[in-house]
Structure formats: structure tokens, C-alpha cells
């Protein structure tokens, strides 16, 4: 610690270089944090799923529908606490750009199955007692200014229908860019082929042990019917969506790796230049009796201070930005856009690693020179 003043003096000697290096670190770390956050949100479905929930779809694919009558049969399966239809409506609000999810559900069962939804009891009562009622997530209120009592028309290209709903409540929890409404209501309005049909069922099991049993039992009921089912945990269902996107994860990791590597090059170059320019000074320090280890530590300390400052500004800046602007409002399926603790820790670890790795070779080389060699340097 007694050399901390010397390290600081050295850092401030070429202020412009230090500033440029730190700026480069800051923007790169910001980018890594942003990409990691995108990746977190991308895999949220599988990582943050409710372990007690299952999804039942048609055995062939989501392109096929299931009869709503399956609901009664599923409800009798031991271990099933609640079950309801969960049908993608694909309704568009005014313009295709206003994309948000909207689902037809068995309204009175909604709170039983989607346990994460929170809303006032008064609004809940208003919603379940009005067939035309709908509830919207808090973020849709932020985006479109929806309010209870408002009439909202959604146009669904799948069913070729425009349907008017009346907003009865606002909920929080889960994906807050979702609108739920009564399957019963829309069932009267859809074309004949879609009548009494749903795209999936959402099931809540009594316990984690029941989940695989329920999946098997449900599928075996419908095995030899016209509408065989595939039931899987919400997690597996989400993973199937994530795998649909292909190698997104690997691609993002690849990009993050490239950024981290360029960070190493930038820092390595800076430290190499710094060390080289001070070769003669090293000779003098050695002549004064400084040990090789001490000299190396001076350089390592310098690199670590620079990367730590860069990391703190980059991480702090990212936190500040993402806390003040909620980007998740504008990205479909993203529930939040705040870096996780793991992401921030990872970014910090990357910068420390870069700090150490960037200086190792230069420090090792220059501290190992003889006094004469170092003093003779022409840098």
C-alpha cells in the first residue's frame, strides 16, 4: 500500500491515455451488460417458470387446436389443482406495431392458475362478472394509457374478427404486457371452425411430485382421440420456444466473447505502451534498489486501478440507465430490462481478468531486465 501514491501518480501522468482507455472499457462493459441482460430475458421463460404449472397442447404442434371439452376431463386427473384454457388470440390493437400478447382464458380460474397475477379484489370481481371484460398488465397502461371502463377493440387475423372488450382491471406480476379476457365471450364470436376450440390448457398441479404424473395421465386420456395432447412442464414448454429460435444463446455468447477479447487487446496495448515508455525509469528504480516483484506489482496495480474504475463507471452507468428507462416496454415478451446481480458480477470479473491479463507479459518482461539494459532503452 505504501506505493499507492506512486501508482496513482503514474496513472495520472498521461491523463488523456488513461481517459481514453477507461472510456473504451466503459462502453465495452456497457455493451456486454446489455447483451447479457437481453440473454437473461430471452431465457426467463425457462429459468423463472412456475415449477407447479404445466402446459397442454395438441400432440402434433401448436398449429392444431384442442376441444375446450378437454378441460373437464383434465380437471378430474389426480394432482390437478386447477386447469383453464389459455388461447392465443393474436389480436392487434389499432396497428400491427402495437404488439402485445392477448389470451382467452377461463376467467374465474385465472387467479388460481396464474398465481403470480396481483390485482385488487374489486377489479377482479368486476372482471369475472362481466363477460366482455378484460384485464390488462400494468405496462400496457403505461404504453397505451388504458384505464378501467375503457373499450378496446382487438383485431385478430387468425380468427378474422374484430372484438371489443371493456377493461375491468389492471394487474401486476408476470408479463405485464398481456391482456386477458373471457374465452366464453369470444367463443360466441369466432368462426365455426374455431368454436369450442382452444390452443393450449394451463394446468396448476398440487405439488412438484404431481407434475410428471399429471403430464402422463393427461396425455394418456386423449391418446387415441381426434385431438391427442402433449403435456409438459411450463419450463419445458418455454425451452421449446427458446430452441425454436435456434442458436441465439451461442450467437450472443460469441459476440460477448469477441467484445471481451477486444477489451483485452485495448487494455493490453495501453499497458504495453505505458510499460515500454517507462523502461528507463524501471532501470532507475532498480538502481535505487527496488526488487523485481515490487516493480511488477506497481504495473499490475496500475492496470487494476484503471480497469476497476472503468468497471465501476460501466456497471454504474448501465444500472442507472436501465433503472431510469424501462426498455422492456418496447420489446415483446421482455418482462424487465434490469441487469441481474450475476451479470454485474460477471462484468466486474471480466474487467479484473482483463486488467491482470493485459499487464502480465509487459510487467514480467520489463521487471526482469538488468539495470544496464533498462537504462540503455531508447524509448
Amino acid at each position: 500500500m505504501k506505493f499507492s501514491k506512486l501508482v496513482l501518480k503514474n496513472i495520472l501522468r498521461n491523463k488523456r491515455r488513461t481517459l481514453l482507455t477507461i472510456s473504451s472499457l466503459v462502453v465495452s462493459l456497457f455493451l456486454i451488460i446489455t447483451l447479457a441482460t437481453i440473454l437473461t430475458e430471452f431465457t426467463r421463460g425457462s429459468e423463472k417458470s412456475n415449477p407447479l404449472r404445466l402446459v397442454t397442447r395438441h400432440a402434433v404442434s401448436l398449429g392444431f387446436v384442442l376441444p375446450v371439452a378437454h378441460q373437464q376431463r383434465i380437471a378430474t386427473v389426480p394432482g390437478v389443482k386447477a386447469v383453464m384454457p389459455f388461447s392465443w388470440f393474436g389480436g392487434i390493437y389499432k396497428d400491427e406495431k402495437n404488439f402485445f400478447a392477448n389470451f382467452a382464458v377461463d376467467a374465474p380460474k385465472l387467479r388460481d392458475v396464474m398465481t403470480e397475477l396481483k390485482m385488487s379484489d374489486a377489479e377482479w370481481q368486476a372482471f369475472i362478472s362481466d363477460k366482455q371484460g378484460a384485464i390488462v398488465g400494468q405496462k400496457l397502461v403505461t404504453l397505451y394509457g388504458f384505464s378501467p371502463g375503457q373499450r378496446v377493440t382487438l383485431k385478430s387475423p387468425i380468427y378474422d374478427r374484430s372484438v371489443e372488450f371493456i377493461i375491468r382491471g389492471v394487474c401486476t406480476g408476470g408479463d405485464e404486457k398481456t391482456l386477458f379476457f373471457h374465452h366464453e365471450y369470444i367463443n360466441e364470436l369466432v368462426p365455426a371452425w374455431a368454436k369450442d376450440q382452444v390452443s393450449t390448457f394451463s394446468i396448476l398441479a398440487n405439488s412438484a411430485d404431481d407434475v410428471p404424473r399429471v403430464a402422463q395421465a393427461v396425455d394418456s386420456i386423449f391418446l387415441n382421440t381426434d385431438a391427442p395432447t402433449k403435456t409438459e412442464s411450463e419450463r419445458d414448454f418455454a425451452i421449446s420456444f427458446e430452441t425454436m429460435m435456434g442458436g441465439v444463446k451461442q450467437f450472443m455468447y460469441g459476440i460477448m466473447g469477441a467484445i471481451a477479447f477486444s477489451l483485452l487487446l485495448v487494455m493490453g496495448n495501453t499497458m504495453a505502451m505505458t510499460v515500454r515508455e517507462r523502461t528507463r525509469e524501471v532501470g532507475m528504480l532498480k538502481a535505487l534498489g527496488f526488487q523485481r516483484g515490487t516493480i511488477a506489482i506497481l504495473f499490475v496495480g496500475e492496470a487494476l486501478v484503471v480497469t476497476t474504475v472503468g468497471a465501476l463507471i460501466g456497471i454504474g452507468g448501465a444500472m442507472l440507465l436501465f433503472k431510469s428507462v424501462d426498455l422492456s416496454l418496447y420489446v415483446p415478451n421482455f418482462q424487465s430490462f434490469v441487469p441481474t446481480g450475476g451479470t454485474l458480477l460477471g462484468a466486474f470479473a471480466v474487467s479484473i481478468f482483463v486488467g491482470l491479463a493485459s499487464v502480465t507479459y509487459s510487467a514480467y518482461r520489463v521487471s526482469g531486465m538488468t539495470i544496464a539494459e533498462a537504462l540503455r532503452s531508447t524509448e
Partner: protein
Amino acid sequence: MALPLKYNFRNITVRKSSTFATAFTIGLTVGVFLMVMALARGIDLTLTSSGEPLNLIVLREGSTAELNSSVSRENLNNLMYLDGVVREGDQPLAAPETLTLIYKPRKGMNQGSNVTIRGIGPMSNKLRSGFKTVAGRMFQPGLTEAIVSRRISERFQGLDVGDKFRVQTTDYTVVGLFDAGGKAFESEIWVDVNSLASSTKRDTYSTVLMRAKDQTALASLAKRITDDQRLHLKAVAERTFYEDQQGAASGVLKVLAVFIAIIMAVGAGFAGMNTMYAAVARRTKEIGTLRVLGFRRSSILVAFILESVAIAGIGAGIGILLALPLNFVSTGTANFTNFSEIAFNFRVTPDLMFWALVFGVGIGFLGSLLPSIRASRFKIVDALRAS
């Protein structure tokens, strides 16, 4: 008087490691940009090449994708014999088609994606150029046989010649593999339209594809079908239909590419400035000497900018070389128009490479401005006195 280019190149090679680190940083920036853009371009090219210029696709009024479209059998007969549809002998060049999805696990994974199954009519092959069977044979109409695109067969389990897959209660046997000239159909399984209709218990078709005699006929057919109030159908040029799909899939990627590239470029630019400032500082005395010899401030300025641009050019070259092998990589993602897999190649096209080069050189140019201006502003006396 300009400094000889030799001066620049000698200097670049003096500090090899520093030059290389800077060039490689720019190379990574350019490479990442190019890779993401190549992904977006792959999707775009697959979709834009998919439509034939004279083909017309008829969908249900209001539907946005083939999957949620339906055309009745009665309407098919009305459509096929309209004026302006090309005839093959006495048969109109038009085909009813039916689309459905089947969920298949990817190779080496438990989970997978939806694959499109297209029921095709007798004329469907003739309506699509580039189609050829590459293994096995074509399916026989009326049987529950299927041909699978080679790419899909490579990416998913149980879709090779001889394998069986189930649609509802019907088993289909894969009898052949096909290529479709890099088009969107290379992400599909093809079966007989009537077999598929009976196994999915559908009494309507999804779409009707037809060939118009010429552009005028195409336009008037489209207008006539769309305007006919009794049909409740819409007709669009097949090319437009596929072009409209590209935005959703590749738009996100392009935004991502530009976002990442700009931020990485800022980082690389700062690093480049560091290198150039160091070069200027190291050569202060040299700059003084050059000025004494009669070289102008502007010559010094240009020399340093050129040096930086050359390093950036090398960097951009590295970036392009890094991205180029991707041209041979085939990948796939979900096409959210039809909610199913679309297989395609990364496409590092010459125009993308050109823009990558411009981008890389741009970083070098902008990064060099301040250090070069500094170099050109030295007073001769001070510069010569520098240690």
C-alpha cells in the same frame, strides 16, 4: 508536398504488436457487425428469392399468413379458370395448397421447433423453379408419402428417407429429399394436398398459387380477386408476399447489428486514438525534422491520417476474413409469420463486405483526426527539442 507512402508503411511495421492489437480490435468490431448483418441478409435473401415474379398467391381476406388463411374448394374452381391464368395444355397452372405444422425435436436435442408441412397440388412443382429431388423419389399423389427438404432433414430428428412421422392419426413415410434453390420452401415437408386434407380433417385449402400470363394479367387478376365481394379473398404477388415477411425476422437483427457495431466502434476508436497519440508522441522529434525539411503541416496531417486508415483497413480485412467462413454455415430460426422453422445460410455478400470495409476505415479515420491534428500543430523548435 506529400510524404511518400513508404514513410507510413515503414512506421506501421515498426511497432508490430501495437499495430496488430489496434487492427485486431477494429477487426473484431467489423467482424461482429458483419456476422450479425450476414445472418439478417441470409433471412432476407431466402425470403426475397422465394417468390416467382409471375406467381399470385390467394389468401383469405384479412389473413396475414398462409397458416391462418383458408380458401374453399368451391372458390378454387372459380379461381383456376379466370382469364389471365397460364394454361399447361388444357389445365390451368394453379394449385391449391394446405399448410400445417408439426413439432419435431432438433438433432441431438430433446426440444425442437415447428416444421411446416405443405400439402401441394399436382401443379405446385411447376409453379416453383429450382425444385429438384436430391435423394429417393417424389411422393405418389393420393398416398401418405412425403418428401422433406434436405436442410430440414439435416436439422431435425426422424425425417430421413424411410422414416415415418405422424400427423393426427395418419403416418406419413418419407420417400425423398428435395432442394428448392435456397428458397423458403427448403424449410418444409411436402405431401399430397388431398392426403393432408383428410389427415387433418380440413375441408378447405389454405391458399391457391397460380401463374399469371404477364405482369398486366397479374395486376388485373389480383385486383379482380381482391375486389370480388363474394369471394372474401385477397390475392397478392408471391414476391410481395415473401418480401413483406422479411422485416419482422431480420429487422431485429439489423437493429442489433448497428447497435453493437456503434458501441464497439466507439471502444475501438478510443483504443485507436491511444495508439495514434503514442505514435505521435514517439515521433515528435521526427515530425520536427520533417517540418525543417520543408514538409507542410498539411502533409504531416495527411500522413498520420493515412497511417491510421491503413491500420484500420488491415483491421477491416481481418474482420472480413473472420466473418467470411460463415458463408458456408447453415442455420435456422423461427419465422414468426408462420410460427415455424426457417432454414437459411449466413450470407456475407460483397456489398456487406464493402460496407464493413467502409465502417472499419471510418473508425480509423475518425480515431486519427485528433492525434493527427496535434501532430501537425507542433512548433518546429519545440518538436526538435523533445526528448
